[in-house]
């Protein structure tokens, strides 16, 4: 009431307030008025101190390594540090990943990967009847890839290497820029493929590198297009089998349109289920995409086959897509995807998903709207959308809590214990995440893993998380640099433990179970 009286008695403030509202309050934070009313809206909000530092490092990276924490602390400007991370992540995304040498084959050229898969098929066909393949041996070799893999286990080895790369990326700042590691997980999950679906297996790592990582902070439409043309996605959602049902197509008697990919492209990848499309639009989009299929011989693994493409005009959500001339049919699909990727429903959906991942299970609508506005204004520039989010007070508001998913917690444990190269620990982290229900890149359906607390924070799950924390951290050296970030109650309980048990309790504390 006192503030209100002040406003009324002081006309310039009213003018400033009105001006700020008009501009969406951007740039008004310096005025005393907006300081009192716009803690949520302001982009010049300057978070400081241990709470903000802890938040930044646990949300933008998988957790505090000693060197990164020291860097953040000496910077003393968490928001500036966060924006620097964003710049560094974008820069890194444009460069090749630093794969540990024994994992390099996940980044082989696509023709080589297709060859590997074919060799496995041939090797398996040559196995004498009744032979029981010793799958156990391959299991035991998990995360130890020094020897060249046998043709019989090529696909499985590729999957395991892809998982190992995720563990290397999330745990080591030398292997991967830490925010880019998180963004890669986010986009892989958003454009989810199931790495254990037969034909997808050898491509999962390549997909993570060349789709999720390469376009992580670029234009959203480029990300969708890259995913649409990658063999992993073409196989996963059966697009490669979807052909024109028109009569008179040679050799296609038992095949026809498959709507699987077209539907998920609208429902999950872009617009969202209430994004304004109908079943007719799904069918039209499927018709547009006929002829999009894999190519084992081409560098990008993709080809458009005009012979399999359905001719005729199509209309998607009121957008007319005229019939194409020979060899340009692929442009129909590209045009449709660019349209969907830049649709206002998509801007909302992508902004919401990013805010759910980085800010809160139920992020403030004002934040999502501001991100979506930027999305549309910049042609879907993910970097710019992220910048809005990191500059927004909602990102820094301690009321916006997040519970770590099992994958997140597994990676956090490797960072808190500072064991980026310890593959035995990787195996423990991987095993925990898997048993807890979030195997790395292991979700079967195209919706990807949920990352909210209502999915992951259950009583039994918490006890298994504590089991894991106490086990993986046993005898780990203490990290006194973390103590200033823990609550008094946590510190007291940790210090009661003998030194060789303390890191387990640090890891199991609410400061690390949540973020």
């Amino acid at each position, binding site marked *: 009431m006192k503030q209100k009286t002040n406003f009324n008695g002081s006309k310039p403030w009213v003018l400033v307030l009105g001006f700020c509202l008009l501009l969406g309050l951007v740039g008004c934070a310096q005025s005393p008025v907006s300081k009192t009313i716009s803690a949520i809206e302001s982009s010049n909000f300057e978070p400081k101190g241990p709470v903000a530092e802890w938040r930044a490092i646990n949300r933008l990276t998988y957790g505090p390594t000693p060197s990164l924490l020291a860097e953040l602390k000496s910077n003393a400007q968490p928001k500036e540090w966060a924006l620097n991370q964003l710049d560094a992540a974008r820069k890194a995304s444009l460069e090749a990943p630093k794969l540990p040498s024994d994992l390099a084959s996940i980044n082989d050229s696509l023709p080589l990967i297709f060859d590997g898969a074919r060799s496995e098929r041939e090797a398996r066909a040559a196995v004498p*009847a009744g032979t029981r393949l010793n799958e156990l041996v391959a299991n035991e070799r998990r995360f130890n890839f020094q020897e060249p893999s046998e043709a019989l286990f090529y696909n499985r080895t590729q999957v395991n290497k892809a998982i190992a790369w995720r563990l290397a990326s999330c745990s080591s700042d030398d292997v991967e820029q830490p925010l880019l590691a998180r963004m890669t997980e986010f986009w892989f999950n958003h454009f989810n493929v199931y790495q254990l679906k037969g034909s997808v297996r050898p491509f999962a790592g390549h997909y993570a590198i060349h789709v999720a990582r390469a376009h992580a902070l670029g234009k959203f439409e480029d990300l969708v297009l890259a995913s649409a043309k990658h063999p992993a996605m073409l196989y996963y959602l059966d697009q490669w089998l979807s052909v024109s049902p028109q009569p008179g197509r040679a050799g296609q008697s038992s095949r026809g349109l498959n709507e699987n990919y077209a539907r998920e492209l609208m429902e999950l990848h872009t617009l969202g289920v209430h994004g304004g499309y109908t079943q007719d639009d799904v069918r039209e989009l499927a018709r547009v995409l006929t002829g999009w299929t894999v190519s084992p011989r081409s560098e990008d693994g993709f080809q458009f086959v005009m012979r399999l493409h359905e001719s005729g005009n199509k209309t998607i959500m009121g957008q007319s897509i005229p019939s194409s001339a020979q060899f340009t049919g692929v442009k129909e699909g590209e045009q449709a995807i660019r349209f969907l990727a830049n649709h206002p429903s998509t801007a909302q959906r992508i902004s919401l998903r990013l805010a759910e991942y980085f800010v809160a299970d139920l992020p403030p609508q004002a934040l999502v709207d501001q991100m979506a506005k930027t999305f549309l204004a910049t042609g879907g520039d993910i970097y710019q959308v992220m910048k809005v989010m990191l500059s927004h007070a909602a990102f820094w508001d301690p009321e916006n809590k997040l519970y770590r998913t099992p994958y997140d917690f597994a990676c956090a444990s490797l960072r808190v214990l500072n064991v980026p190269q310890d593959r035995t620990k990787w195996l423990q982290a991987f095993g925990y995440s898997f048993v807890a*229900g979030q195997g790395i890149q292991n979700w*079967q359906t*195209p919706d990807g893993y949920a990352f909210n607390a209502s999915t992951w924070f259950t009583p039994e799950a918490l006890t298994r998380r*504590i089991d894991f924390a106490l086990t993986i951290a046993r005898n780990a050296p203490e990290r006194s640099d973390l103590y200033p970030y823990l609550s008094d109650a*946590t510190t*007291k309980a940790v210090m009661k433990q003998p030194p060789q048990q303390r890191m387990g*309790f640090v890891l199991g504390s*609410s400061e690390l179970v949540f973020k």
Partner: protein
Amino acid sequence: MSMKAESMLSNRRQAIFQTLSMGAFALPAISAFADAPTSSGRMVLVFLRGAYDGLSMLVPHGDERYSQIRPNIGIPKPDGSSKTALALDATFGLHPACAPLLPLWQQGVLAAIPCAGSPDASRSHFDAQYHWETGKPGSSSPSSGWLNVLSGMVGNGHGHHALGVGESSPRILSGPRPVQLVGNGLSATRAGTLAESKTREAVLQLYAGNEKMANAMMEGASNRMSTAASLKAPSMASSNELQAANNGAGSPQGLSLDAKHLGTLMQQNRELRLGFLSSGGWDTHINQGNVTGLLANNLNNLANSLIQLRAAFNEPNDVVIVASEFGRTCAENGTRGTDHGHGNVMWLLGNRVQGGKWHGRWEGLAQNQLNEGRDLPVHHDFRGVFAQALVASLGLTKGSIANVFPGFQWDASLDGIFKA
């Protein structure tokens, strides 16, 4: 177990349930089911992931085409020996590795439905499993599992009514209602680090400032201790169990240990009305074998698991159902295996089951009778089979089936698979 011990156990369990119902996860039963279930049976689903080859388990030896299209992997016609199919009637026989099931067939408690499945044509394991588990063929939209939905319709709305053993969070049990999930193999018997009161106490102090976490931790620890205690009863220790466990989880061998755990837990907690088990290793594209071999071993393990389940679920209305996401091709492929097909054989086991016979349509293996000329057709929607069990075994009304399987219509051609 003496009466006294039994009642003590039940008191202890009641106490645990009271704790549970105070938690944030308890939901009231769906109020639409005013028509209270009248039958107190229990239903267990054994789901064979990867699409098992039903035509090796239920062998159509009466069809001349069977041996023609399966020259290497077919099971020979019954000759009375254990090297051939075990005759059930003039049409079908059992795989000899399933010999333990023959007495159940003869007693009239085991029945088969040869051509059941999902109306959706997908040959993708993951799509088809998703459809089976959500009860919504053709839809890949995010959805609760239908056993989770069903768990809100049986019992009084407090505590757990569904139990899954083996998988960490199977889709079929996922959703807003609390269900009991128990780890696979020997992990179920481990109470974890929090079983030690000293550790529990220390973690409680760690969460001193956070009541929600402290409560969740205590509740989880108490659940796990009670599960582990139930499973560590002396009768559980046997060399069989260890052998099964050593062979690893997710395998058909692991199934028999999980089945044993499920039986024990559901015997001890009668609030649990729904059980779920699964096993992998059925996707036999190459070298599946015939009378012996890979598939025969799997089938033998399955048969032994079913014998265990029969012992635990032998009350008048109990039923055990075996199913897979789809079937395999009728003909063998070029690598002495079978590829993804469509319809498949479902099995029902229980005292209410009109057993000793097979049910529903069977038109043989002539090419023009097959789906796309290659697979068993789906004459009976899987939801129709489950709907029959929901009514006969669990006592649901026909009208309430649509809450489990939205939009599904009752399949009257299956009336009679359960005794009235």
